[in-house]
């Protein structure tokens, strides 16, 4: 069953100006996997995502997305970048940002259709930002902006969703909702989530890959935790998210 492989990295090496960042990464992500790439800062997590997206070319090794080179099948990837640098005065509304996800679905110069509008509104509803659709992006809070960018990634209707630190600036309340949303999406699509903070590796995630230049572990979450400790060179505790009907949480209210 080779045809259900979503992402395959074979002996991937990468360096920024002679400084090695990735050394011989072998990784297979199957369709409908929910995998979290974890590792310390500067360990090469974001670089792996950028290689999967075809934004960076590996020095050595091959990358295949559904058996094709990344640039060919990029349109089926949804991406949430870690940092989006923009000027707060930039003239753009929430809806215009989310519609960017629909740009590649048509020939250049043609207008957005009703269908595009509906898909965007639906994506905004999923992240709870639909009431802000006509607001200026620069006037939102950091967490709200991140939710808008998540909606933008969803509006591409991706087969693989690549998220780089998706919950770094949203409140814990919303993190819970977010992981439930991902879990729902995971029934249809593959999700790759990058984080340096292993305490957010949620109970919903079924596989982890530990990266610090090299791939330390790649497989199911439970057996991997001691490997994580080895990589970070300190004991690590996995904090699981409580479910909403957790009695402990209910009594707090």
């Amino acid at each position, binding site marked *: 069953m080779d045809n259900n492989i979503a992402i395959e990295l074979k002996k991937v090496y990468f360096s920024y100006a002679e400084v090695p960042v990735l050394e011989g990464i072998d990784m297979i992500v199957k369709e409908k996997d929910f995998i979290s790439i974890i590792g310390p800062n500067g360990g090469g997590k974001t670089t792996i995502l950028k290689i999967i997206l075809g934004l960076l070319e590996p020095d050595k090794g091959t990358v295949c997305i559904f058996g094709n080179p990344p640039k060919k099948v990029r349109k089926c990837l949804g991406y949430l970048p870690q940092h989006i640098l923009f000027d707060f005065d930039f003239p753009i509304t929430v809806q215009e940002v989310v519609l960017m996800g629909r740009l590649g679905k048509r020939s250049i110069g043609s207008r957005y259709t009703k269908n595009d509008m509906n898909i965007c509104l639906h994506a905004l509803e999923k992240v709870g930002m639909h009431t802000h659709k006509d607001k200026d992006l620069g006037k939102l809070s950091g967490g709200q902006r991140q939710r808008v960018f998540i909606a933008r990634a969803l509006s*591409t209707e991706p087969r693989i969703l690549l998220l780089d630190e998706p919950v770094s600036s949203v409140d814990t309340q919303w993190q819970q909702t977010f992981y439930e949303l991902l879990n729902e999406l995971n029934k249809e699509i593959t999700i790759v989530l990058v984080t340096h903070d292993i305490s957010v590796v949620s109970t919903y995630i079924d596989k982890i890959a530990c990266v610090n230049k090299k791939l330390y572990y790649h497989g199911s979450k439970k057996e991997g935790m001691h490997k994580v400790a080895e990589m970070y060179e300190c004991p690590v505790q996995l904090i699981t998210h409580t479910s909403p009907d957790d009695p402990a949480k209910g009594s707090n209210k």
Partner: protein
Amino acid sequence: MIELLHFEFIRNALFAAVLVSIACGIVGAFIVIKKIVFISGGITHAAFGGIGLGYLLNINPVLTALPFSLLSALAIGILSKKTKISEDSAIGILWSVGMALGILFISLSPGYAPDLFSYLFGSILTVPISDIMIMLILDIIIIITVLFLFKELHALSFDEEFSMIVGIPTHTLYLILLCLVALSIVVLIRVVGIILVIALLTIPATIAKQFTTKLKKMIALSILIAVILTITGLYLSYIFNLPSGATIVLVLAIVFMISTITRKFLIQKI
């Protein structure tokens, strides 16, 4: 003021002011939001090579400036994206090479270079009807291109990386944007001159950006601001017998300062 309109050169100057405002309103908005002011400055100065070539070949320098600025726009775009040369350095090199070529061509051309000054500092009162026709055609090209590619150029200016991932040809679009900058520079050269072009490309759009958060409104507003202020500058230069290009730029700068201070004051009050 009405009796001034009986003079053909005044009517031409008003036409030129409107055409210039359309170009700098549309393209200036993208220059400001994409933050390519310095690149535009580089293309402007590289266009001087084309002006010099016009003198050497004894043809209208506006016509030779056109291919020169287009080629330098493409060169800056390609050098900075496809090679390891930084965009900053590519701009610096083309900026000075273009100027050097211009000086060389002019020194090689026979006799004295008449009205060279007007290409450097602008002279809206002496724009001939033939140049106005060229400006009109370039304006039409700019308007059609931006109408057709509006949302792509908007997305490119906001987030180039994401635009690339969703599958739009960002490299080509970026080159098209730089070519639009080159066209607008040629429209502007006659009116404010090479040295002052960058003022018209940045100041009206920057003022407009302070008062709206919608790109379409920003473009409309910068065209309006440019029309009013270039005509005001033109009028003042006529009354006080001052150089028109420099007067227009200073009028723009004064209004920019007033609008920035008032906006700050208004925001603090709220």
